[in-house]
């Protein structure tokens, strides 16, 4: 069974559209994350939720809205997509929000905005 899963794996869409990426973890972890990896492989945290509450919110355009319906799920909705949003988005989870916890990553969603 996949520990952290994301859907879809690939997403190709036009500028201006709204899209969602879903993430689920079956590890029983309390904390989940969204990262963005650009074309140069630079990985930057966007958001983190602990027990459905937002604990990390980096400087991300408010077109990006995370939603955590329960602690096993963290979805990412993006409004009015722009060319610069093209990247690979990774979901991750960790046991707690404490320091040193291993983060387990999903396989990524490659978003291409045309």
């Amino acid at each position, binding site marked *: 069974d996949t520990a952290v899963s994301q859907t879809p794996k690939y997403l190709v869409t036009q500028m201006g559209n709204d899209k969602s990426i879903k993430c689920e973890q079956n590890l029983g972890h309390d904390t989940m*994350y969204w990262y963005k990896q650009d074309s140069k492989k630079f990985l930057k945290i966007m958001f983190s939720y602990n027990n459905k509450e937002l604990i990390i919110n980096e400087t991300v355009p408010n077109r990006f809205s995370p939603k955590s319906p329960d602690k096993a799920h963290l979805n990412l909705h993006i409004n009015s997509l722009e060319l610069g949003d093209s990247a690979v988005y990774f979901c*991750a989870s960790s046991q707690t929000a404490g320091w040193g916890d291993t*983060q387990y990553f999903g396989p*990524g969603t490659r978003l291409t905005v045309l």
Partner: protein
Amino acid sequence: SQQGEEDPQALSIQEGENATMNCSYKTSINNLQWYRQNSGRGLVHLILIRSNEREKHSGRLRVTLDTSKKSSSLLITASRAADTASYFCATGDSGSRLTFGEGTQLTVNP
């Protein structure tokens, strides 16, 4: 600029050789972690070293940490073709936030 910078950006070696990757960071840290990313996949945790530790081993991996120089190194001994991947260091503070470096692309030629 980002917290971690890695050196070299790319490294190509022959199977059986050792590979050394370096990571430098700017601010105080609580711990430093190394992750591996195979092409088209998510990151996989390799090893964590605490700020009060100087060296740690795990199988063929050896990590060192020098907090006075704000640097860490990852050594992979007796490399294999399957070690071909990108390797990232990530620094952690008192919470769960990790700040990743730019990564080193390692290619191990059979």
